[in-house]
């Protein structure tokens, strides 16, 4: 039996923070507190450990090792003192999966109305995977997907189904 198109792995232990603010005003200070540059529109920047993604014109998503979460919340919160906005921990509200393997883009192509193969590095695409909302970006060897905690079982199942051996999209 051939191998699965990609390995699907649920990632735990990540700290995930939603930041909402007027980025034109608070962006620089937030960047400093996050330790990463503010990404361009629909972009995501990473230093290998943390990643900062552009979610909407007034929303960022910071992903970092869980141990660094409290300090980051504190630091970002301070930036927004006196500045409208919010910083909230959503680590427990999200489910993160990595899709890694030679045909990882096929897995995404089966579930999202997105041209995965053409997706550039550093692009964060918010879309849907089958019937659930998700954000997708490239990581080493594949893609990372972030969705909702309550539908994590569903997300894991449809990703595994899409990756079954022998089902690559290349014409046969």
């Amino acid at each position, binding site marked *: 039996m051939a191998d699965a198109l990609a390995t699907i792995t649920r990632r735990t232990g990540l700290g995930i923070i939603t930041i909402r603010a007027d980025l034109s005003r608070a962006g620089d200070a937030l960047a400093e507190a996050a330790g990463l540059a503010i990404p361009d529109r629909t972009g995501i920047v990473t230093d290998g450990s943390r990643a900062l993604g552009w979610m909407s014109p007034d929303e960022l998503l910071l992903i970092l090792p869980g141990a660094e979460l409290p300090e980051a919340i504190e630091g970002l919160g301070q930036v927004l003192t006196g500045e409208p906005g919010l910083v909230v921990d959503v680590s427990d509200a999200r489910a993160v999966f990595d899709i890694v393997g030679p045909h990882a883009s096929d897995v995404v192509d089966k579930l999202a109305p997105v041209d995965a193969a053409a997706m550039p590095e550093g692009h964060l695409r918010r879309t849907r995977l089958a019937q659930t909302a998700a954000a997708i970006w490239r990581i080493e060897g594949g893609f990372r997907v972030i969705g909702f*905690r309550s539908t994590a079982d569903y997300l894991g199942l449809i990703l595994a189904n899409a990756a079954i051996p022998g089902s690559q999209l290349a014409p046969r």
Partner: protein
Amino acid sequence: MTHTPPFRLSTGGRLVDRALQLPFRFDGRHLRGLTGDTLASALLANGQMLMGRSFKYHRPRGPIASGAEEPNALLGLGQGGRFEPNQRATTTPLVAGMVTRSQNCWPSLDADIGEVNNLLAPFLPAGFYYKTFIHPRPFWKHLFEPFIRKSAGLGRAPTDPDPDRYEQAYGFADVLVVGGGITGLTAARDAADAGQRVLVLEQSPVWGGRTPTDHDGGQAAIDALLDDLTGRDNVTLRRNCMATGLYDHGYLIARESLADHDPNQGIPRQRLWRIRAGHVIAATGALERPLAFACNDVPGVMLASAVRDFIRDYGVAPGRRILIVTNNDDAYRTALAAQAAGLEVPAVVDARPVAEGALPRAVRAAGITVLTGMGIAKVKGGRHVDTVVLCDQSGEGRALDSIDCDVVAMSGGWSPVVHLYSHCGGKLIWDEDEAMFRPDPDRPPLGPDGQGNVTVAGAANGDLHCAGPLEQFEAPTQPVWVMPARAPYKLRAKMWLDFQNDVKVTDVELAAREGYASVEHTKRYTTLGMATDQGKVSNINGLAILSNALNQPIQATGTTTFRPPYTPLTLATIAAEAKGEAFQPLRKTPIHTWHETHGASFEPVGQWRRPYAYLRGGEDRHAAVAREILAVRKGVGTLDASTLGKILVKGPDAGRLLDMLYTNMMSNLPVGKCRYGLMCNENGFLMDDGVVARLSEDSWLCHTTTGGADRIHGHMEDWLQCEWWDWQVYTANLTEQFAQIAVAGPKARLLLERLGGSIDLSQAGLPFMQWAEGQVAGIPARVFRISFSGELSYEVAVPANRGLELWERLHLAGQDLGITPYGTEAMHVMRAEKGFIMIGDETDGTIIPQDLRLDWAISKKKADYIGKRAQRRLHMTDGNRWKLVGLESLDGQVLPDGAYAVAEGLNANGQRRVQGRVTSSYHSPTLDRPIAMGLVHHGPARMGQVLDFPMPSGATMRARIVDPVFYDKEGSRLNG
């Protein structure tokens, strides 16, 4: 040892591998075909011309075509859960061990009882059912409809679950070429040369379309194109992929067969492609038309192109003596192919007065008789063609001669396949010279930029001679709609237009006479072009007959609407991964697994699964609910309330926003306190409720109903983004960040205190409708002193990852207190005992808060809130609305939910007037009697009155109007 079936030719068959024989079964018979055969070619090779029965008259039918347009040869394939009805033999690749059977016949294909319908054919014209089965009226429902339904449909639907896997995928292309013939491949090369990202879809397993079959050097030309295209980075060539429909903005649906008839590979059997194309090139070719002559449906009458496909592509002789009848030059190729294969061609009957193109000349040179100006008066033969009676094409069908043959290869000209082009708005024009509808280049389907986004090329565009230098001159086609031209009724009544649905020339003429002037109406009246055929074979001939009958040009008649799919899609492909566990996303709380292992009987609430009740021992749901309620009322229970929406609203203008969203005031809520709030839409109708907690000077946490979280968050964002965009407010939906557990009952405080923590849970430390933050059992928590059960109650919110831990700690610590998990039904009953409303029970989208006597939660001070203006509208304030009351049934029985209370008199429709209805109704275990809430006209002013609720059984239940608060009217239990 090899055995050659009787009709397998000794030479030819470019698509089959003679070295690889495949056994298969047809109606129990063991047969052999070759690798590369279709089911149809394999059956024909075995001399099996009879492949099905027609739908209405059960006439014996063989294949008339060799491709996707085949209307007759529809077979049942496979067994058990893999059984599939109505599979086209002409496009189904033969697979070793295949089990196939004929359909629409009983007891067998050869001796079909239903054939009696054929004898009745003169009495079953178009519209017969409509006219006959209308009176007497009651007969329709009880007699006619069941009978017609039983005899309707071709194959039988499978009954077992489909064991196979199906999937979908999204595709993208700058240029999407549909059709892998010479036109499509050439277009693909040109687009690829221009640097476009090109995707080519071919419906069959082989590239090339008709070119390799019809033209010397055709295969070489196709091979050269394929060589050129293969290996280009910007070109994808996909075979076995049927483009079934084209939709708006370049969205195309295609079905790829991956393991269709060899499903045991473990890979998906079919894949539905959802392709977005910048531009579509439809190179979908053309389909040959039948000719309408008497008995043109006898097995052995086939399209000329199909006859030569079987000979040249599969090395199969459909018969030994093949008569050609045509109105064009192309069909002469069949004469040459048959003769080259060693078959007899007694004559080519050409309806045209002259036939002097290159192909007729070649046929004459080959010694084959060409009879011009002639037609077929009638085909003789029952299960198979025996003899053809010839006549003058311009006459009335007087017999001039007769010729014995076993196959009639007919050609009435070609019709471009314009389906895809037409699916999303492309318009057609009638081409008088070529007698065909072709795409109107000035009215193509439009893309998002308003420019045409579909180009039609080659034969699909009406250019029937599209093989470039491979082509030789062909004389024009001469339209022949009826053969012979002046055929009398008796002959016309045997000329089939739609073979699948048994529609004949006289049926269409009858429809026209009866006033069906619109082609769409005629289609429905006669069933012309319905079912899987969708007019591929029948359309143009039918339109021409209708136009003649209406005495109008064909352009004026127009075509019926071309609708997707071009060929049928299986439901399994449409559903794809959305079945079983993945049917829809089920939302699970952090405590879900505990519920599963503790007897929870779940109920869906939106996409959530919530425990309805936890069944113990042999308990039923009803008993479990009663036990849970009593446990809460007497001791302590826990409810998983994690599904409640939790939306953070923060910013300098957050209070202002909430004052607009809620009917009551939220901006003046002190930090640390909670307030119950109602949310209405602009219609004034109640849409959600919940407790709002003020977290800090500039932030509020809004609880919503379970089903309302996403909707209410969206509602907030809508008003913020689109109406009050200058307000400084940010929202975040934190529903899933927290697990929330309601700990309710007189022993709730005792239990929580046992867990230890930093929060003072005493009445003084945390009074009703306040919240506190700290830790409970070492877990960071917010504790809300709120109650939906009427008992002393705390809702404890902790990070979702620690929800299960808290739940288990509670149950460990509360064992001696009789701690009981309770589900949504216990929650519902307890809130009803307290007279609390439930969104979705007491509300249905037409209820204002005032109806529910919630005026206390509507601010009088606020100048505005969403819904305020609407609640002042006449019908909201005229005093005639139904209002919330309690209902107490007189006979001790539980009123049915939704039952209506009747009033005197009848309404304008002659129905009893109504004056109220039941909105919630339960047996109260606490009170050990039924309780109900309802909305009643002038209800609150009518306490003590008795209402009648007629039951479907004819009996009437009676109930007294009472106060809706049934339990603990003083509310003292809240304080424990």
